[in-house]
């Protein structure tokens, strides 16, 4: 019942968005913004082509490495700063100000270090994802009830056992929330890197299409990325809600 209503609401939003798109198309003309119908039919034609598959694969590989790095480093920093109170107190404001920095500014530095390579794009993507993951996990660990720590000590658990059998299960919903935001921002970082300087990937396709004035292709790629991000987010959000209900 609730799910059906929520589905209906999402449908309404989609219809309104499509109408707004059509209206904007009428206002600015076909060369600038093709309407939804021609774009979607172009999408159906373009997505199965090899060119799309190659670039989508390039982005996906880059995004995969970047997400793995973000999660691994973010988890390590978050767990360390959550357990060790002093490092957390010293480090938290530093992490927060790094988080609010426009990291695009630093992309040239990444490029100078790594060159125009996959590792550069992966590093830049991971730079976006690490901080929110670390901050959310640190806060989750800090909020664990004291009695959990006591029982871990009573049972003489080692540090690793404490992390794996007490900390992670107790903070699982927050960890998933961190992973969700890390997913989003890492994707943003990877796409920005591709838009700024790359010869492959969906970000490159968009900039290339803009320079060639191929509005249909540009919007098609944007719609595909949009759908991918929205689906990934919805999936992780669903997982998060389930874990919260369990707890």
């Amino acid at each position, binding site marked *: 019942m609730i799910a059906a209503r*929520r589905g209906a*609401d*999402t449908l*309404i*939003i989609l219809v309104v968005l499509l109408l707004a798109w059509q209206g*904007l198309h009428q206002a*600015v003309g076909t*060369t*600038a*913004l093709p309407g939804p119908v021609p774009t979607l039919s172009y999408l159906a034609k373009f997505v199965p082509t090899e060119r799309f598959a190659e670039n989508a694969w390039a982005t996906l590989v880059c995004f995969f490495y970047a997400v793995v790095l973000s999660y691994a480093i973010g988890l390590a920093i978050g767990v360390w700063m959550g357990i060790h109170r*002093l490092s957390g*107190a*010293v*480090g938290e*404001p*530093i992490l927060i*100000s790094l988080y*609010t*920095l*426009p990291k*695009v*500014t*630093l*992309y*040239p*530095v990444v*490029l*100078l*270090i790594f060159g125009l390579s996959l590792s550069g794009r992966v590093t830049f993507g991971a730079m976006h994802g690490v901080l929110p993951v670390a901050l959310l996990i640190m806060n989750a660990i800090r909020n664990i009830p004291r009695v959990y720590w006591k029982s871990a000590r009573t049972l003489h658990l080692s540090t690793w056992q404490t992390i794996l059998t007490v900390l992670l299960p107790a903070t699982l919903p927050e960890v998933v929330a961190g992973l*969700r935001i890390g997913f*989003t921002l890492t*994707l*943003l970082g990877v*796409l*920005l890197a591709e*838009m*700024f300087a790359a010869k492959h990937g969906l*970000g490159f396709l*968009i*900039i290339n*299409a*803009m320079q060639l*004035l191929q*509005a249909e292709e*540009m*919007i098609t*790629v*944007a719609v595909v*990325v*949009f759908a991918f*991000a*929205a689906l*990934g*987010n*919805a999936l992780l*959000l669903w997982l998060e809600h389930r874990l919260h209900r369990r707890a």
Partner: protein
Amino acid sequence: MSRVGWMRIAVIAAAIGLLEFCCRIGLIDHRVVIPPSQMADALAQLLMSGQANDQIVRTFGIVLVAAAISVVAGFALGVVVHALPRVRHALDPFFATYYAVPIFIFYPVLIVIFGLSVMPIVLMGVATAIVAMIIATLNGLDRIPRVLGKVARVHRMGTVATALLLKLPAAAPHLFTGVKLAVSYAFIGVIASEFILAPAGLGRVISDAYTDFDNRRMYALMLLLIIVATAVNMLLHVLDQSWAERRGIGKP
């Protein structure tokens, strides 16, 4: 300052010192990163020569305009949406996914529509910032205590007086959080747009300096952006904290 505060400064100083040391002994190539002292020197010279003043004024002006539009329009939209529960209900999934989608992929679309001018950059800044303000406004209005409505009725206050004297102050802390987010998001939106493609502005100048291998200029302007962004964020954070403390809900 507290012991933790001193330790934090020591950590930052050590990081900068380590970078300086590695650059000086040649562990890091000066073609990749120049020593922090040289960055500061280059920035001081650039600011005194006034060469980059136009770009600095332009970029920070756009950030200010985009943040102001976002705050005003976001607040207005938030109030309207809050008054219409059905619309709000329908918009909830939209708000939940908005920041999950890399909206920068629509920047080229804006360029094609409006041309390579200041307009797409302002719109991109607004697009990144406005939804945070709308969400903060909704949160603030949700958390107005019900008793205030009763107080207004007891005192026979009009709608305008209730809104200005009771509701606005009650929602103010949440609204300020929205302002804080809007400013820092507008900053990110504008700089990132200028980086990708723009006729002028700090992002463009940094990206040009990178292409010209002009490291001194590039690092000087990066340093400037980092200093300004950190200073603005810290200022907003301090204001937010002192406000919270005065209301007795902040950390002592």
